[in-house]
């Protein structure tokens, strides 16, 4: 360690073939990830840090004969951590994370238009005494605002580090940045600057008392300021109960009675306000026209109207824009299935390919266009900075349900998928707020609910235009509202009972409005599409195959021989169209009989009594049960069940559902039953991935089990009430 008092020469400096690890650090929204993507290209890997679910993104960069391992760390403002994300950054920088070596060098990413706030972290990073390169991103935005930054002076102030201006979105300045990095990692002669000498003096004094504890000076400094748990523990081990008193004494002589973090802020910003006028030619002021727009949009009422209009547009778009592409996929899957069925000899193999694989996976892939449109909107909201604005706008409303504006971003992302959204709650510092948000997130209508919503709405809601809106779009919007209602009510109840506590705080840096970069947006979108397709190709495919097998086997020979006998009989008396129709009827009846006595049929019939009060027959019950591991499977299962049960019928699944009947001829999919089924899907938690991520994030099985039981019960009761009231 650079600060270590020992003088032995570290061995690793002598061995040659070691890759160099570089930590990429910076404020949130500084363009850090865009820069990381640009530097490492597609040479990336995502894993988790041990014990926590913070994503660890690493990438390789080869310069000449040397390999650099870059670690992209979550954004921070200071080395005083509040959340799990920030904690891991500090731990990585101080070399405390198992499996992640102490970084050999730092790549500090700084938004050129936010030098004031960035200099706080830059001081702390420079004090780590490690080789460092500063990348000033958004050089184009700075130039637009006519800010000139004196890179040499900035590097000088930070103890002689190279500073490079770059534009991460276009790649401008990157060759200079790369050569700076290659040179910087070899420099170890630079003197570590001190921006708060008094703190370093206290740390040196305390270090003398705990010699041999292998704490670095920065570890000790963080212990004095933040009561850093690792440091406190090591000092206690070295000094016993005296350790706490010693820390407190040093803290007191440094800060008096003021909170140390407040004192640190005052000291560091005093330095910043002295240095800043010499570093930048003028204070950043966003361009006038941009300010005008932002200023107007931020007025509460335009902002609210804009927000609601935007949300409504998203839902209309998901339905209207996706249709042509969906029709295309539908036609392709249909043609492929038909071709397979007509080419291969009839039997188990043909049925497996056409009804199991093609129909099953096809019925999920068809929703790719809708999911892409939804993600496109969410990514655009994120990249323009609008998502943070919605947090600001909605904070007051969220406070009413015991959450803060910071919960809005995870909740809105929940419309795409609950799994990454639950991970996104890590920005919420308070544990109670975080768990309440986690429990509300699975209620948000995720993209996996879209397939079943889309199917049922398209089949049973008339395609009427009401004013300028489409009735199907309105019903979809209503279902989204239902999800929000469930989530909000759940958060409120939890905050009044199990998660009672002080009101959450809300401190947020608002990013400027920014033009999203097409390349970045497309990369993120492709990433999402790939995740979805991979799921369709693995989990959903596997479930579809299992369900097909359950629905196909065992084959009853007597049904088959009866079918053949009946065909022979009608061939003797009928001919032409009448014969074809009669044969089709016989085939359908035989297929339905086969399905009813298959394993899936028996399972569905077994649980049917449980779901009969909701108006579900054994087919729907079987599909719902098959959907518990992953809800998007349900459409595939319905596809399989109905395709198997009516081989001759070539109408789409929606039409097949419409014609489904009870044994006595009554229609299964009545309006109350469909509405109940929709409500069941709005509230029920049918997603093993979500349960797993809740377990990981809350570190207990209690919360995922509670979420599953609670949401399933809520969905059941909702469907029961609607069906019973509607059928009276």
């Amino acid at each position: 360690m650079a600060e270590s008092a020992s003088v032995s020469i570290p061995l690793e400096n002598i061995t040659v073939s070691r890759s160099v690890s570089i930590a990429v650090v910076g404020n949130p929204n500084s363009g850090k990830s865009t820069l990381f993507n640009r530097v490492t290209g597609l040479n990336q890997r995502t894993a988790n840090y041990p014990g926590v679910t913070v994503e660890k993104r690493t990438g390789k960069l080869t310069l000449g004969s040397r390999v650099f391992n870059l670690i992209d760390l979550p954004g921070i403002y200071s080395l005083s951590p509040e959340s799990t994300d920030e904690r891991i950054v500090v731990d990585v920088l101080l070399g405390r994370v198992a499996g992640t070596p102490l970084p050999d060098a730092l790549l500090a990413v700084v938004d050129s238009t936010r030098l004031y706030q960035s200099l706080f972290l830059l001081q702390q990073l420079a004090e780590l005494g490690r080789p460092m390169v500063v990348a000033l991103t958004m050089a184009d935005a700075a130039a637009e605002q006519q800010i000139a930054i004196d890179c040499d002076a900035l590097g000088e102030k930070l103890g002689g580090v190279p500073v490079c201006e770059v534009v991460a979105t276009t790649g401008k300045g990157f060759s200079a940045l790369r050569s700076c990095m290659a040179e910087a990692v070899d420099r170890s002669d630079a003197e570590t600057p001190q921006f708060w000498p008094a703190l370093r003096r206290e740390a040196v004094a305390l270090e003398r008392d705990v010699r041999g504890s292998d704490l670095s000076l920065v570890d000790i400094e963080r212990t004095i300021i933040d009561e850093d748990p690792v440091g406190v523990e090591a000092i206690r081990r070295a000094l016993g109960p005296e350790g706490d008193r010693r820390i407190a004494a040093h803290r007191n002589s440094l800060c008096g009675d003021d909170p140390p973090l407040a004192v640190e802020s005052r000291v560091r910003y005093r330095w910043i306000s002295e240095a800043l006028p010499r570093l930048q030619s003028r204070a950043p002021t966003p361009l006038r026209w941009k300010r005008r727009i932002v200023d107007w949009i931020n007025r509460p009422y335009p902002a609210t109207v804009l927000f609601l209009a935007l949300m409504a547009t998203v839902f209309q778009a998901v339905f209207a824009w996706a249709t042509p592409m969906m029709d295309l996929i539908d036609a392709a899957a249909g043609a492929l299935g038909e071709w397979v069925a007509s080419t291969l000899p009839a039997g188990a193999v043909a049925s497996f390919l056409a009804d199991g694989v093609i129909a099953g996976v096809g019925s999920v892939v068809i929703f790719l266009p809708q999911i892409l449109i939804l993600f496109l909107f969410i990514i655009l909201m994120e990249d323009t900075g609008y998502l943070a604005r919605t947090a600001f706008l909605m904070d007051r409303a969220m406070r009413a349900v015991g959450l803060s504006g910071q919960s809005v971003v995870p909740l809105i992302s929940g419309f795409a998928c609950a799994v990454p959204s639950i991970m996104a709650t890590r920005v919420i510092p308070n544990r109670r707020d975080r768990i309440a948000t986690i429990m509300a997130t699975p209620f948000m209508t995720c993209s996996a609910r879209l397939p079943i919503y889309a199917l049922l709405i398209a089949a049973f809601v008339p395609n009427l235009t009401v004013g300028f809106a489409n009735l199907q779009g309105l019903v979809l919007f209503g279902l989204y509202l239902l999800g929000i209602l469930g989530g909000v009510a759940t958060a409120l109840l939890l905050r009044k009972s199990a998660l009672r506590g002080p009101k959450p705080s809300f401190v947020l840096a608002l990013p400027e409005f920014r033009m999203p970069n097409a390349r970045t947006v497309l990369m993120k979108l492709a990433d999402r599409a790939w995740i979805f397709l991979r799921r369709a190709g693995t989990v959903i495919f596997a479930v579809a195959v299992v369900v097909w097998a359950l629905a196909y086997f065992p084959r009853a020979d007597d049904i088959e021989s009866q079918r053949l006998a009946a065909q022979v009989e009608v061939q003797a008396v009928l001919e032409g169209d009448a014969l074809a129709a009669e044969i089709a009827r016989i085939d359908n009846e035989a297929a339905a009989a086969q399905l009813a006595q298959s394993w899936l049929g028996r399972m569905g019939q077994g649980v049917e009594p449980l779901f009969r009060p909701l108006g579900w027959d054994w087919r729907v019950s079987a599909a719902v049960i098959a959907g518990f591991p992953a809800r998007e499977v349900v459409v595939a299962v319905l596809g399989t069940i109905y395709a198997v049960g009516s081989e001759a019928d070539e109408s789409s699944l929606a039409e097949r559902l419409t014609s489904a009947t009870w044994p006595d001829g009554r229609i299964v999919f009545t309006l109350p039953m469909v509405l109940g089924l929709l409500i069941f899907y709005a509230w029920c938690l049918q997603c093993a991935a979500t349960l797993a991520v809740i377990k990981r994030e809350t570190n207990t099985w209690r919360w995922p089990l509670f979420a599953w039981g609670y949401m399933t019960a809520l969905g059941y009761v909702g469907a029961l009430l609607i069906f019973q009231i509607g059928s009276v």
Partner: protein
Amino acid sequence: MTLADLKRGDRARIDAVDPVEPSVRRLMVLGLVEGAELECLGGSLGGDPMELRIHGSALSLRRADARRFRVTSTAGAED
């Protein structure tokens, strides 16, 4: 006068901060310290939370936290 008394377009300088709350200390880390000059950009629905601009960066904070910052008005909106 505190930060919470500022209206859209008001400019002010911070005279004193009462760092009792953790959220106030987080605002200090973001640069809301004694001597800092800032501009009020208005508020969200019902004026709470409010938005400030300091050295070109926008920040949002709740009125309850804003009351912990004593300020002196420096000038009105310029443009």
